[in-house]
């Protein structure tokens, strides 16, 4: 899961991991804290199977990438295996270098990804806003990801029930379903 510091990728990874644990997988998850969180590019890796050794993977080893921002999809595209799957938020966040006019936000990120990988593209930011809160964008993407993963033996809705605070449960369930539908 890749994105920009503060977008909620770590929380999303936690929901994923809770489901994988319920399904009996060995799971490892890797994240980086500190300086990169201040609006920088961030990635969280989740690795699961019968027995997992390394918590991190290098280029060419990921089965699926979930990009919370579309330029970040391109940045981490080399981590995907050829023929891999990408779930991409059609959402643009200019970096500080772009905002300062030092460089241009790249054009054609989505098209580039779509011509090389099986892509599920959705505007999770807009879907979240329509549901009433930009903050549930990460769960919208999570819904899309569960569609792309084809792991339908896991009851993801019950995992969400167990992991998000009751106050936000209804919103998050709606977000999850909207994300799943958008990834059709």
């Amino acid at each position, binding site marked *: 899961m890749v994105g*920009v*510091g503060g977008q909620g990728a770590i929380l999303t990874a936690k929901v994923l*991991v*809770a489901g994988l*644990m319920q399904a009996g997988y*060995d*799971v*490892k*998850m*890797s*994240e*980086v*804290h*500190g*300086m*990169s*969180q*201040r*609006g*920088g*590019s961030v990635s969280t890796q989740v690795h699961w199977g019968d027995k*997992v*050794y*390394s*918590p*991190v*993977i*290098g*280029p*060419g*080893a990921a089965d699926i990438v979930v990009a919370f921002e579309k*330029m*970040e999809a*391109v*940045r981490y*595209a*080399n981590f*995907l*295996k*050829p023929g891999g799957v990408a779930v991409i938020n059609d959402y643009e966040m*200019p*970096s*500080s*270098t*772009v*905002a*300062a*006019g*030092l*460089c*241009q*936000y*790249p*054009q*054609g*990120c989505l098209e*580039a*990804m779509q011509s*090389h990988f099986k892509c599920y593209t959705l505007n999770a930011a807009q879907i979240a806003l329509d549901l009433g809160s*930009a903050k549930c964008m990460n769960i919208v993407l999570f819904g899309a990801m569960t569609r792309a993963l084809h792991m339908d033996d896991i009851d993801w809705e019950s995992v969400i029930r167990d992991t998000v605070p009751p106050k936000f449960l209804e919103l998050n369930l709606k977000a999850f379903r909207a994300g799943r539908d958008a990834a059709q």
Partner: protein
Amino acid sequence: MERHLLSGNEAIARGAYEAGAKVCSAYPGTPSTEVFENLAQYRDDLYCEWAPNEKVATEVAYGASIGGVRSLCAMKHVGVNVAADPIFTATYNGVGKGFVIVSADDPGMHSSQNEQDNRYYAKFAKMAMVEPSDSQECLDFMKEAYRISEEFDLPVLFRTTTRVAHSKSLVTFGEREEQPVIPYQRRTEKFVSSPAAAYLHHPELEEKLRRLEAYGRTCPLNRMEMKGSKVGVITASIAYQYAKDVFPEDTSFLKLGLTYPLPMDLIREFASQVEKLYVVEELEPFMEEQIRSAGIPCQGKELIGNLYELNPQLLRERLFGIKPETVDVGVEAVSRPPALCPGCPHRGFFYTMSKNKNFVIAGDIGCYTLGSAAPLNAMDSCVCMGGGFSVAMGLAKAFEATGQTEKKVFGVVGDSTFFHSGMTGAAEIVYNKGHMIPVVLDNSITGMTGHQDNPGSGYTLQGDVAEAIRIEDVLRSYGYENIFIVDPQDLTAMQKAVDDALASTVPAAIIARRPCLLIKRIHHDTGLCVVDKDKCIGCKKCLKVGCPAVMIQDGKSHIDPTQCVGCTVCAQVCPVGAITRKEN
């Protein structure tokens, strides 16, 4: 048995708790911080605190060990440099009850100024070293580390790396075992490290290390996984996990957990059972050099290299020349470096600094290191914690000695850094008459590491209220007669404070004070700035403040409403008043 998904740091905290640790002291630093953030939940059973710096933390923990309780300190790799002084003598003296020092190294420099390999500290200071490779080992090895510390009368360096500290894996808990209380007795010959005592301690220390090396042969932290006789791999820490992914099934492993002193007999035995021997380790050839110098042929660093962190794909490529197959999508992402957050109080100070080309600014470690980035570009150096003041002093003396009087020198530290090691620099500047201005950027929290309290914040790690130490009181007591306390978000006031400090004929200092917007216990007066597109002349002056929320769209200024918090710094620099703040 219930399994928990824990980071290495969470598991270390759990391990120390289960091992019966009683007194724990640390200074926050990525990637070590969460050890103590998680220890705080056990406050009914142990005492834990944030100390002003790593040296203090180490001394507190060592003192507690002398006092007869299991103790812990934790720090990032460069923190051990600060704590080196007490560590190098604690090894000579030995311990009271078990004493464990967590060093979290940062290969790849995710959040650090270097990637020093702290395993050399174990060899240099002559202490035991334990290296876990996943979260379960973080918990289990902690208990063994205390046992080793007590049996061999040595401090134990518990060395992790970012990927051990911050990766999460499944962990099974045990129970806390309270340690029996040892009635305190004065032991002058052991704990007063006079030259005469140290003279006797050194040979004793060498003997302890010999015994520990022999123990390494049967130590449960070291294990052989014999699968075949063709290839053997000696490895430890996170490199073990990478190597398991990379080498074929029939590869034998000697997986080490007690890595100093290295169990050379065990290594020799393992080496004799395989045809080809690899040593797989991240960063420096710490194990390989020792194994080679014991006359055991092996291969490692000449293939793997000593730069940055490894991963399985990289290791496979370096060892076997197998490149991962990747796709080039033909579009390149532009860099997305970290930046000062929208509404960050440091922005107003660095913007003010950026306007004068004769200002020379020695920075320091923290969020405010980002003042060096474009477009602010307002920093000349950043070396280490506390260095902001004293490096600035050196710059000022150099300019003074060479007649470059047009240069105006500022030394910049944060509030936590001020208490860490800025105070000594502040004394240096005023006492030795530095022609420079020390500046404390006081955002009332230790920011970059994720909001830990410090002696200026008024709270302790265990959540109790404490009397905050006032930075201005400290500076005044040192002899700073003019102390300008200013809200850096008010650019006019900030500029005036700088001008007044430079004009002062008596020692002057600046405290730029505004709390970090991310502090949850404070109510922040946020709003939203908007651009009147009809008034905007597209001059791009607002871009000079380096705010991620401010950008140009269709030739005019645009403020992203999802990021803006209404700090008005951009509005204050707009020459035509096109930016105004709407109240929330």
